[in-house]
């Protein structure tokens, strides 16, 4: 049986990298005595898959990973047991049972929502809010995407599903995060493109980024229906 776990990662924990978080949860699952399924062989591993790696320095209230379990009592109990063995800065927000046909965690990721604010004194310019608005409203937003293998010229407009400037002067972005194709857009990249368009030098450190949640798409290519990744599961 497959179980999906939603957690938050905040405060000092933002400095813990993705691989260390995986190790952290492998040990947490042992401490919590969860009847997780292991692979066979000389060094058995837990059957575990993370949805969308979070970069060092980012906080999140919507992280997910899936595990395979042999038995359980209730999802609520599993959540409790896990919350008793984590450290401050990590909180298990939800544990749900996935239907048998649920896709794997990483392939299911379709979109992510982020809140971005500038560190004090590091705003790009005084009127950045209106400039950012017109930046987002363009027909196309050309950008350069650098991956390990290539440098691509892409248009990020189709992947910028929603944007908003909140009353507290932070930016809310809802972005394509599917791992297929060139669709996956990181929030820093949007801001970097904006800075470049404004002719301002970009230092990624100026941003404080929180991933609000991660979503899967229950709709179609043309009519998306994004829901948080835990909503495909059941909570009993």
């Amino acid at each position, binding site marked *: 049986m497959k179980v999906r776990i939603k957690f938050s990662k*905040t*405060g*000092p*924990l933002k*400095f*813990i*990298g993705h691989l*260390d*978080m995986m*190790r*952290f949860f*492998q*040990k*947490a*699952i*042992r*401490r919590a*005595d969860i009847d997780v399924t*292991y692979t066979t062989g*000389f*060094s*058995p591993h837990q059957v575990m898959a993370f949805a969308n790696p979070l970069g*060092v*320095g980012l906080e999140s209230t919507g992280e997910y990973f899936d595990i395979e379990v042999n038995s359980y009592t209730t999802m609520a109990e599993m959540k409790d047991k896990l*919350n*008793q*063995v*984590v*450290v*401050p*800065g990590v*909180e298990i927000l939800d544990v749900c049972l996935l239907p048998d046909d649920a896709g794997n965690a990483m392939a299911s990721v379709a979109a992510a929502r982020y809140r971005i604010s500038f560190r004090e004194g590091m705003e790009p310019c005084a009127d950045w809010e209106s400039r950012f608005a017109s930046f987002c409203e363009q027909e196309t937003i050309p950008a350069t995407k650098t991956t390990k293998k290539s440098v691509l010229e892409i248009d990020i407009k189709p992947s910028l599903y929603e944007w908003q400037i909140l009353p507290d002067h932070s930016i809310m972005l809802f972005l394509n995060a599917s791992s297929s194709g060139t669709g996956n857009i990181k929030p820093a990249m949007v801001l970097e493109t904006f800075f470049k368009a404004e002719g301002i030098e970009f230092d990624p*450190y100026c941003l404080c980024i929180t991933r609000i949640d991660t979503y899967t798409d229950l709709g179609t290519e043309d009519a998306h229906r994004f829901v948080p990744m835990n909503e495909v599961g059941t909570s009993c």
Partner: protein
Amino acid sequence: MNQNTTQKLALTDDILLAIEKPARYIGNEVNAVIKDKEKIDIRMAMCFPDVYEIGMSHLGIQILYDMLNHYEDTWCERVYSPWVDLDAIMRERHIPLFALESQDPIKDFDFLGITIQYELCYTNILQILDLSDIPLEAKDRTWEHPIVIGGGPCTYNPEPIAPFFDLFYIGEGETRYRDLLDLYKKCKAEHKSREEFLLETARTIPGMYVPQFYDVTYKEDGTIESFTPNKEGVPATITKEMVTDLTHTTYPEKPVVPFTKITQDRVVLEIQRGCIRGCRFCQAGQLYRPVREKDVDTLKQYAVTMLKNTGHEEISLSSLSSSDYSALNELIEFLIEDCDKRRVNISLPSLRIDAFSLDVMSKVQDVKKSSLTFAPEAGTQRLRDVINKGLTREDILNGSIEAFKGGWSRVKLYFMLGLPTETEEDIAGIAELSNEIAAAYFETVPKEERSNGSIQIVASTSFFIPKPFTPFQWARMCTKEEFLDKASLTRKAIMTQLNQKRIKYNWHEADASVMEGILARGDRKIASVILSAYKKGCFYDAWGEYFKNDVWMETFAECNVDPDFYTVRERSLDEIFPWDFLSCGVSKDFLKREWLRATTEGVTTPNCRLQCQGCGANQYGVGVCTEGRS
């Protein structure tokens, strides 16, 4: 669980994002202990002066951390050497060194305890003090500064670093901290001076060495003339502290579990302390006498509890010679059964290779991927007798043949170069033994079964470094040139072997070994060299890429200290050594006897279980000394 996400950090985001592995500095790990500052009397920082991944792997600190935090009036935290990247930033921005749990400056603590596990960390001790803004020399400290305590194996010759410490705790940490803390509280309450506190410590608490209360005078030839207390009531000899009941002593059931991968990323079960063997080069084998075992049922309970509390996926046993633990079979069988249920790996320490250990090893590891390890230390039986290493050629060959039959085809061999009385024949013996093992493989395993790419032998040599409190403390150490010649002789000898293509040879760096040799048997005169070398930028000497031999040698010259005095000089039997005022239980007479048996007679000495040698450690009246002998 209470989610306290607003915990402050000593380092700002820009720093933490700019340095390597910020996880080293944010604390917050599973099982780290957080206390309310308002409700405790004593703040203690325990330090391992090397990088986090190394320091966190050390069992001793985990034991003391756990013990001290069980005291209601004490909060013990951890601190390690900031890596070079952060070190530079902290100096530039004047950020004081902080403890991981509270992120508070070390300078505000009552005690800073530093465990000193190897000589090449001496400059890192100064780094810790410096970054903490604590005067490097004890004489410049006031009540404004923590009491700086040294502990660990290097304190059995504390003299090279004596000026940097307020006091050294000689022996095992479990026994006297409570007394020390109580005396501290009393002295503080009575508004005693710092010096009065140290004096009362030296006078009343066993195992405490306060360097400032001892004077050394030297003879014209540079050796020690006298070493005496300069205050009344301070003991002339300090005897090591030792845990007498290892089963019922304190042990961490909830060790701290780091986020980042560390060297010892597993549950460590200490099964015994000490070693019955008495290899003559080995310092640990003398320092921790007599052997004391932990009860096997207690160990089983610890294994289960610690695995549960940490979530580690691996467990290993810790001791100097696990094969000598009397209930080893029972313990390992329990672990195999229990760990298999929990999908926990067992990482076995190097066991003596025999039918039992091969059977066990084949159960817990993939024989095709794992290797057999032998530490003959010397190439010929003659030299192995000199060093009292019981392992014979037959043991090694028979063990290997059994292992080859079981599917193993990788062998690791460890040797030392530069041992007392070593000749070219002994060096050739290293190559010959390696060759014989390869030949045994070809004889044992038929061609069609050599599935795993045939036999691979890795022979490694380190350079012999004489250490205090060993029978070889009188020995002359080789020069760098001699060491390198010996390594090249070894390489050539291996190249002439029939099976040389199957043998890979590794040897250690010679400069760092010589440096370690100088510091190991150094005296107080070396302290000024260490201080100057540190000020010239030497630290992380244990890390090859940061060890600056030329700076060190230049500093010796500037300070007018001859490094050869500590290494290549012949020592007479009646020389007073800088560490003679300490006692680890083993008498100097016994060590002398062993030195002569080695060098003039070349005969071995039976181990403690076969026959007591009257080494002196029976004064503790525990462990192997009180066992009935068969």
